[in-house]
C-alpha cells in the first residue's frame, strides 16, 4: 500500500508540475474540458467574461476530458489534485460521485436562480448529486444528400437499417451505447421501452442480432471529427455523429448534409469538482458559468442545447454565421419529437459488460 501511494504521488506531482507551470502570480483555475471547438465555445461564453470580471483569476484549459474519470481517480488516490473543475458526461460523473472522488454540489446553494426566480433545482434539465449539466448534446444519424441521387432520403432510424432503399456504408461509433438502442428501435421496440428490453438477456441478444445486419456495411469511428469527414468523402452514405459537428460541416463548411432527428440519442454534459476542490472561487465560477445567460451565450458558438429551461428563449444567432441557432438545437421542439434519452444509470451498471461483449462481437 505504501508503495502504491509513493508511485501515484510521483505520477501526480509530475502532472502538477506540467499543469501549474503556466501561471505564477494570479489565482489559477484549472478547467478540464474536451478541447477543440467545444473548449473554444466555453472560452468565449464563460472563461473570458469571467476573467474580465475577476482580473486576478487566470483560467487554464486542459484538454483531458476524454480521460477525465481516470485522471480524477489517479489524482485523488495520490492525494494531489490539480484539476479544479472537470467537464464530463453524466454517466462517468455518477460513477465518480459514487466512488466519492468528486464533491457533492448542492445546486440551490451554489448555482444562480433563473431570471424569473425559478430555483436551479427546477430550472436545470437534470441535476445530479455531484453534477451540474451545462449542455444537452445529441448523437444522431446524418446523411450526405449526394449519396442518394434519387431524392428519396432516409428520415427514421428504421430507414438506416433499410439497405435496399438506402444503400451505402454506415459510419457507426465504436461503442455499444447508442448503437444498441437504435438497433432495438429499428427492430420495432418503442423508444420508451428500449431500456426495459435491454434489461433482459434476450433483449441484449436481440440488439446485437439487429446490429449484426449492419456489421458488414459498418465503418467504425472513434473520434468526433471522423463522421463528417466520412460523409464528405462519401466513404459512407449515413453516419452517426455529434450534432454540433454535423452543424459545423453543414453550416460553416456548406456540406450537403441532413440530420435525422428521429431517434436522436441525447446526453448531458456538465461540471464536476474533484474532491477537496470546492473552494469559494470554484463555487463563484460555477454560479457564473451556469447561469441562464451564459448557457444561452454558449449556443452562439456551438450547436449544443443549453441544459436550463430558462436559457432556451435567450438562444440567438450564431456568432459568425449569423444564422438563427434555435432550429439547430437538439432541444428545440421540432427536433425533440422522438428522442432517446441516454439512460446513464443503466449504462453505469451495464457499460462494462456491454463493452466487453461489444468488443468481442466486433473482434470476431
Amino acid at each position, binding site marked *: 500500500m505504501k*508503495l*502504491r501511494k*509513493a*508511485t501515484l504521488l*510521483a505520477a501526480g506531482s509530475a502532472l502538477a508540475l506540467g499543469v501549474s507551470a503556466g501561471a505564477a502570480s494570479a489565482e489559477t483555475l484549472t478547467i478540464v474540458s474536451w478541447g477543440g471547438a467545444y473548449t473554444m465555445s466555453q472560452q468565449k461564453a464563460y472563461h473570458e467574461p469571467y476573467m474580465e470580471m475577476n482580473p486576478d483569476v487566470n483560467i487554464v484549459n486542459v484538454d483531458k476530458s*476524454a*480521460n477525465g*474519470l*481516470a485522471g480524477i*481517480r489517479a489524482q485523488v488516490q495520490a492525494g494531489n489534485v490539480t484539476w479544479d473543475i472537470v467537464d464530463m458526461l453524466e454517466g462517468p460523473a455518477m*460513477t465518480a*460521485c*459514487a*466512488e*466519492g472522488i468528486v464533491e457533492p454540489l448542492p445546486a440551490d446553494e451554489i448555482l444562480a436562480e433563473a431570471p424569473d426566480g425559478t430555483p436551479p433545482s427546477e430550472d436545470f434539465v437534470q441535476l445530479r448529486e455531484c453534477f451540474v449539466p451545462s449542455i444537452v448534446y445529441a448523437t444522431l444519424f446524418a446523411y450526405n444528400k449526394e449519396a442518394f441521387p434519387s431524392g428519396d432520403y432516409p428520415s427514421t432510424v428504421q430507414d438506416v437499417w433499410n439497405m435496399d432503399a438506402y444503400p451505402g456504408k454506415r459510419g457507426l461509433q465504436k461503442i455499444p451505447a447508442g448503437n444498441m438502442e437504435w438497433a432495438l428501435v429499428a427492430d420495432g421496440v418503442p423508444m420508451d421501452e428500449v431500456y426495459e428490453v435491454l434489461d433482459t438477456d434476450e433483449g441484449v441478444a436481440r440488439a*446485437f442480432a439487429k446490429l449484426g445486419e449492419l456489421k458488414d456495411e459498418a465503418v*467504425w469511428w472513434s473520434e468526433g471529427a471522423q463522421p463528417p469527414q466520412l460523409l464528405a*468523402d462519401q*466513404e459512407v452514405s449515413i453516419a452517426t455523429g455529434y450534432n454540433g459537428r454535423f452543424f459545423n460541416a453543414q453550416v460553416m463548411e456548406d456540406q450537403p448534409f441532413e440530420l435525422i432527428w428521429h431517434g436522436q440519442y441525447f446526453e448531458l454534459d456538465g461540471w464536476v469538482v474533484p474532491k477537496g476542490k470546492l473552494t469559494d472561487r470554484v463555487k463563484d465560477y460555477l454560479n457564473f458559468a451556469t447561469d441562464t445567460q451564459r448557457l444561452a451565450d454558449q449556443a452562439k458558438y456551438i450547436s449544443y442545447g443549453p441544459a436550463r429551461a430558462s436559457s432556451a428563449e435567450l438562444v440567438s444567432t450564431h456568432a459568425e454565421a449569423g444564422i438563427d441557432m434555435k432550429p439547430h438545437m437538439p432541444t428545440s421542439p421540432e427536433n425533440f419529437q422522438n428522442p432517446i434519452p441516454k439512460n446513464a*444509470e443503466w449504462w*453505469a*451498471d*451495464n*457499460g*462494462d*459488460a*456491454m*463493452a*466487453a*461483449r461489444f*468488443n*468481442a*462481437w*466486433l*473482434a*470476431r
Partner: protein
Amino acid sequence: MAQADITQDTGADGRLDKLTTADGTPLKVSIRRAMRRNKLIAFGLTAPLLFFIVFSFLMPIFDMASRSVENHQIPEAMPRTVAVLEGWNGQEVPGEAAFEALALDIQEGQRTRTIGRAATRLNYQEAGMRSLIMGSARRADQLEPPYKQALLEVDDDWGDLDVWRLIKRESGYYTASYYLNAIDLTYSDTGEIVAQPEYRQIYVMLFVRTLWMSALITGLALLLGFPVAHLLATLPARHANLLMILVLLPFWTSLLVRTTTWIVVLQTEGVLNDMMVWLGVISDDGRLQMIYNQIGTIVAMTQILLPFMILPLYSVMKGISPSYMRAAKSLGARPPVAFWRVYVPQTIPGMGAGGILVFILAIGYYITPALVGGQSGQLISNYIAYHMQQSLNWGLAAAIGTILLAGVLLLYATYNRIVGIDNMKLG
C-alpha cells in the same frame, strides 16, 4: 577492523600478512581499505541510475502486478458483511445477521463515500451490482431493523442467492477474477471456474493473434532486413553511410507521421490502389482493402520495426570477416552453399538479437494498430490501453499486462536456454 591486530604476525613461514606499509598498517588492510573506497565511489556513481530504475521502472511494474490481484475495495468498504459471510454456508440466502451487517456497511459507506468503490468493483463481476448497491445506498438512512425486510423492500435482488455468493467470493483482499477474466474464464453462479459465454470470449483470441502477428512481423522484418544489413556491411563506407541514413531516417520521424503516411499509401483511395488501377492490375471497383485490417498493421509495423532488426544484424555482419566466405569457396562450396552454411550461421547472434527485439516491441505495440489496424488488426495492447483509459478497469488491464510480461520473460528464458543470451549481440 579486526585485522589490525595481526600486524605483528611473525610466522616462521614468512607469511605475507606481516608486510606493512610505511606507517605500520598491515598491507592487506591497507589494500582492502583502498579497494573499499573504490567500490564505494563506483557504487556512488551508479546509485542515481539504480535509484531511477527502481523508482521509475521496478516499482511501477510491481505496483501494476499487484493491482491485478488486489481486491481491497470489498473488505475495506464492507467489513461487517465480509465478517458475517465468513461463517455462511452459501446454500441459501443468509439471515438477518448478514443483512444487518450489510445495511450498516452501506450506511457507513454512504457517509464516507467508500461504498461506490465496492459497487464498481462488484459490477465488474456482475452487471447490475452497482445499481443494486448504490440504489440501496441512496436510501441508506431509511434502513431500519429488521434489515432483511428493509433491504428486500429497497431491492428484491438482495434476495438473490447469487448476489451473496458473489460478495462472499470477492470478500478477500486478493482475487483471481481479473486473471480469469483475462483468459476468458469466469466464475459460475456456484463458484466454479468456467469459460466465459462465447459472445464474451476475446482475450485468448487476442493473445494468440498478438503472438502470431508479432511472429509474422518479426519474420518479415528479418526477410527484408537481412539483405539490407548485408549490403550495409559489405558496401564501401561512402555508400554504406548513405544507406545507413536511409535506414535510420524513419527513427527521426515521428511515429504518428510514419503511421499516417501508410494510411495515405494504403487506403482504398490511396496511392498504391490508384497506381494499381492506373496500371490496370485491378479495376476501380475492385480496389483492395489494405488498411484498417491486419494487412495494415503488419505492413506499418514491419516498416517501423525494421531498423531494430537491421542494426543488430549489421553490427554482427560487420564483424564477420570476408575471409570466411572465401575460405568456404576455396574449400569447394558453391557461393549459395557457402552463404547458407558459413555466413548465415554466423549471423545468428544478430538474428537472435534483432528478432527478440522486434518481437518484444511488436507484442507491446499499440499506437500503430490503433491507427491502421481497424478491427481485425487490433492487438492485446490496444485492449490494455482500452481498459486503462476507457473502461477504467485497471485490475483487468494489469492482469492482461502481467500475463504479457510473463510471456515475454518466458520467451526470453526460452531463448536463453536454446540460443544463450550471451550469444546475442546488439552492437
